[in-house]
Structures are given as structure tokens and as C-alpha cells.
């Protein structure tokens, strides 16, 4: 039973970057400007988190810097795609190239090393357990020893859900995404809305990156996101930017990541185990239409009205 407790604890921690990044990406998706540069904001966030934590001896400064750089990347992405007419897919890929290149380039420049930077002076994020909740058997694990970013990501999912469905700004965002003419013809600025959403997405991805670098251990290594930004992208795409589904899928992906961590403790070849999260995403993405169809058939059988 303790095994499940600790597995859930690890899952909660490891799903955080993907959860936060994909929830942040919901804003971009809903506003009609898909954001493919998630990995770029993430890796820059990871880098700047280490920077902030190292030079200011304070992990919260690390989070702050990560958030700021993420927001900047979101801003640039928005400007290039919305105002300069860039193609989202192309710009997304190129931003990722810039992100990877820039962080690799700056390692020797700022930290004096290549490959990776490890130092005991990098302060990792503080961990805390929620009293009472963490004593619940089995699932209490998710409330134990988690970082502020993890707890924040859950709250953020809830905020996002309420924002989109009940607030005026949320309505504007949804309209921009579903029918931009409907928004512009009543006087809303579609471009500005998409830009602001892009900034939010970037900011959240930056923070997600912070969790990655200073969340458990405190270090930065080249391309350490290992494609997690793209996994987050897959999550938000297949969840059709619905916050509840995004939560579910992100945790699913995070779980496969956690599982591979566990299996490495056994003597299985680590290279194959590292493949698990990626293979999992592929299988999920391929089976997605079937899962959807089954849900539809089930609901029809119950005689309920289905509007998708």
C-alpha cells in the first residue's frame, strides 16, 4: 500500500510540468492561436530558474525569473504570429530551435560549464505537505512533499475552467477561437486577445520549466525538457483544450513518466524504459478516436443528449 502512496506522490510531482504547460496552452488554443513553442518557453524557464536560484540564493526568485522569461517568449511568439503574419507551426519550431540553442550557448557564458550545470548553491524548491490531507492512506501521497508549483498547477486548472466558462474575458477568448469574425464584428480586438493569451501560455510554460530544473534536484542540462513541451502540446490538442480533459491526460502522461522512473530502479535497460512516455503518447494519440467513439456509444445507450 505504501507503494501506491509513493507512486502517487512521484506521479504528482512528475506530471506537474506537463500539467502546467498544457493548462497554460489552453488559453492559446481557445483563443485561436495554437502555440507550438511550449518547449522553448519551458527550457528557457528551466534555465532562468537555475539562474535566479543560483545568483540570488532563493528558489522563489528562480520561479519569478522563469515566469518572466516565459511571458517574454509568449509575447514574442504572439507578436510574430499575430502581427507579423508568421505561420504558427513554422515559428513554433524555430522558437524551439532558438530556445535549445540559446540555453546551450549560455551555459558556458553564464555558468562557465558545458553540458550541464550542477552546484550545491542552486537552491531547489521548498517542499511541503498539506496537513490532514497528506495522512489519507493511498491518495495522501499527492499532497505530500510537493512544491509550490505543483499545488499552484492544480489551483490554476480550476481557475482556468471557471475563467473560460463563466467570465466575460473567457467568453471573449472562446469567441476569438471559435469564430473570430463574431468577435471582431462586435468590436473586440482579436489580435490583442490572442497576444495576451500567448503571454499567459508562455508564462505558465516557463514556470513549468522551473519545476523541471529546480523542483527535485537542482541542475540544468542541455535540452533537459526532452520533448516535454511537445507532450504537453499533444495533451492539450487531444483534450481539445477542455480543462478537465487536459488535467486527466496530463496526469496520464505524467504517470507514464513516473513509471519509467520507477522501472529504472529495477535492472531493466534504461534506454528502453526512457522510451515509455513517448510510446505512451503515441499509443494514446492513435487510440484517441476509438476512445471517443466508445464514449459516444455509451452515452447514446443511456439515452442522453449528446452535443459535441
Amino acid at each position, binding site marked *: 500500500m505504501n507503494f501506491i502512496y509513493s507512486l502517487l506522490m512521484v506521479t504528482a510531482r512528475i506530471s506537474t510540468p506537463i500539467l502546467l504547460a498544457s493548462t497554460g496552452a489552453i488559453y492559446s488554443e481557445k483563443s485561436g492561436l495554437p502555440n507550438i513553442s511550449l518547449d522553448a518557453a519551458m527550457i528557457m524557464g528551466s534555465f532562468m530558474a537555475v539562474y535566479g536560484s543560483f545568483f540570488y540564493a532563493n528558489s522563489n526568485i528562480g520561479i519569478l525569473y522563469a515566469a518572466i522569461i516565459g511571458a517574454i517568449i509568449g509575447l514574442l511568439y504572439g507578436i510574430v504570429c499575430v502581427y507579423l503574419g508568421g505561420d504558427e507551426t513554422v515559428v513554433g519550431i524555430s522558437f524551439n530551435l532558438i530556445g535549445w540553442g540559446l540555453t546551450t550557448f549560455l551555459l558556458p557564458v553564464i555558468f562557465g560549464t558545458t553540458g550541464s550545470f550542477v552546484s550545491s548553491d542552486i537552491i531547489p524548491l521548498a517542499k511541503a505537505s498539506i496537513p490532514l490531507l497528506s495522512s489519507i492512506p493511498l491518495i495522501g501521497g499527492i499532497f505530500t512533499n510537493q512544491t509550490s508549483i505543483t499545488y499552484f498547477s492544480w489551483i490554476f486548472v480550476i481557475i482556468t475552467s471557471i475563467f473560460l466558462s463563466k467570465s466575460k474575458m473567457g467568453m471573449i477568448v472562446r469567441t476569438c477561437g471559435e469564430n473570430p469574425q463574431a468577435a471582431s464584428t462586435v468590436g473586440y480586438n482579436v489580435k490583442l486577445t490572442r497576444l495576451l493569451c500567448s503571454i499567459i501560455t508562455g508564462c505558465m510554460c516557463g514556470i513549468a520549466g522551473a519545476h523541471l530544473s529546480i523542483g527535485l534536484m537542482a541542475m540544468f542540462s542541455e535540452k533537459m525538457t526532452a520533448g516535454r513541451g*511537445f507532450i504537453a502540446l499533444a495533451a492539450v490538442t487531444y483534450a481539445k483544450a477542455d480543462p478537465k480533459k487536459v488535467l486527466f491526460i496530463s496526469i496520464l502522461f505524467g504517470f507514464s513518466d513516473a513509471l519509467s522512473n520507477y522501472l529504472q530502479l529495477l535492472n531493466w535497460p534504461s534506454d528502453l524504459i526512457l522510451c515509455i512516455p513517448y510510446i505512451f503518447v503515441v499509443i494514446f494519440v492513435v487510440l484517441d478516436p476509438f476512445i471517443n467513439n466508445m464514449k459516444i456509444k455509451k452515452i447514446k445507450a443511456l439515452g442522453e443528449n449528446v452535443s459535441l
Partner: protein
Amino acid sequence: MNFEFRQRSSKINTVLISIIISIIIGGFIIAFAGHNPIGVYSKLIKGALGSKFAIASTIRWTTPILFTGVAAAFAFKGGMFNIGVEGQLYMGAFLSALVGYMIQGVPKPLHIFLCIVAGAIGGAMWALIPAISKVYFGASEMVVTLMTNYVAMYITDYLVKYHFLAGGAFGSTLVTKEIEDTAKLTKLWSNMSAHTGILFGLLMVFLFWIILNKTKLGYEVHISGINPKFARYGGVSVNKVRMSVILISGAIAGIGGSVEVMGYLYKFMSRFSPDFGFDGLAVALLGGNTPFGVLLGAVFIGIIKAGSLQVERATAVSRSLAMIIQGIIITFVSCKNMAIHVPMIKNVKNLFLKYSRKEKS
């Protein structure tokens, strides 16, 4: 979200302006790193074109990118976003290396041919996963190919580590046995890195041109990429086209890996590719997915890669600078409204004048 990639043609002007802007921004980054931009750039040019050795280096680095560039461009033409060229490259290289050292005692032309076929099979087989996912399951090929890139790297690492490790190489690099001499491509000049693989690469560009402009398949690919509904209306089986396009693209990338093994590495080495795959994507996008564009783009990237290696040796400026500059160039090239900088400058001027007038009064 619609992942369907919109076809666009890059104008020469846009490309030139983008290159200039990127060089300027790159200069700032270099200065930030504490180096002299002009010094770095001149070393870059020297390292790529300044001597026979440099030119050989440029040729060597252009070669694999010709393949990944054509692979990516062909897929993009067909409307398929094959970002998995990196992984297909690895698979092709791996299979090729095996054929390179396991088969012995055959004449050189035959051995090279077999290795190329192995490369094509390796790449195509790896591309089958996203191809089937897209055509039969409607899954985003972009997401699947991205994932398969990482899987390809890990799997080839595993295969080398546990099954095909060259004796006595524990702990250091993961490599397979060296390939037979009959599988090695001839060097263009002795003691320099350029090899006859460049000719294969140029051939590939030429084939790309022929297929695209002269054949039925090329036409179907072209139209399916622009408007699949129109293609279906005309009787094209868009699914068949998409399948072919992804598989062929994978095969080409695989051949690129095979040529790299046969011409330079002489074995399979773990993580041997310094982002050849992404360079190919960049080149395809820069070149507007045209054969000539890919050729120019590949040479351009080859120059940057060769040059930045020299720069890294001479200064401490990491060669990842090349990646940064590439990214910036593509970003600006994809902007349809580059002319926006003209009214922007006008606006800034007007604002400036307004405020300076206010201050006076």
C-alpha cells in the same frame, strides 16, 4: 487545432532581409557573451570558405542536410509535417552500419548499394509508424514523429549498448564495429572530411525536382498538399499519397544517415547527429520546399556549421550559436507581413516627433 501545414513560397527579398536581421541579432548575442561579433563572423566565414580544408568541411556538413532537407521538403509538399527526419536518419544509419560490417567480400558498388537500400528501409520502416497513425487513425503526424525521434535515439542506443557494441569500447562512446572498406565512400581529397556522398545528395535534389515537376506522383503530392479536398474531387487517393509521401520522406532521411555512416563515421555512433534532422526542416522551410531552395539552404547551413565548428575551436563560442541563428532566420522568413516594419518605423518617428514637440512647448 489544425496541424495542416500551409504551403507558402518564400520570396528572395524576405529571405535576404531575414538573414540580415538574424545576423544582427546574432551579433548582439555574441557581444553579450563577451566576444567580438565581427571577429566571430569573420572566423566563421574563414572556417567555411577560407581554405581547401574549410571548403571540404563545408561540403561534408552540407551532405547529410541535402538528404534531410529533401526528405522534409517532400513531405511538406504533400502537406505532411514529418518532423521525424532525425529519428528516421538514425534508423537508416544504424541498419546501414550493420549491413556495412556484417556483409563481407562483395564488390564496392554492390556493397554501397546494399547499404543505401538498408538506409532507405530503416528510414521508411521508422516512418511507417507516423504514416499509419496519420492515414488510418487520423493522428497528428507532427506529434507522432516528434515522439518517434526520441524513441529512435533511445532504441539505437540500447541496440548498440546491448547487442552490437564494438569490442573494447565499454564506457566511452557507444559504437558498432567499423564497416568494411568496400562500404566506405571515397574521400574527395585525402585527409579532408568531404566525400562522394555529396554527389548522392545532389542526385537526390535532382530526383526531387524530376518527381515533383514531371511525374504523376509529384503532381498528386503537390495538389494534395495544397488542397486535399480538391485532390479527392479529381480522383486522387489522398490517403495513398500521404502514405507514400511519409514513407518516401523517411526513406530519404534514412539514406542520409546511411551516407553519413559510409562517408564519414564508418560505423554507427550513438547520438552522432548534431541535429541534422532539424537542420533539414529549417532548410526545407527556408527554401520554400523547392528543390533549388533546399540546395541553397543546405549549402548555407553547411557553411554555418563548418564555420561555427572552427569558431568553437578558436574562441569559446559554442556552435549552438548556429542553431540560434537558424531559428531566427526561419522565424522572420515565415512572416508574411515583413513590410510591417516600414509603417512601424514611421509610427515610431511620428511618436518621437510628437513628444519632442510637446517638450519644446
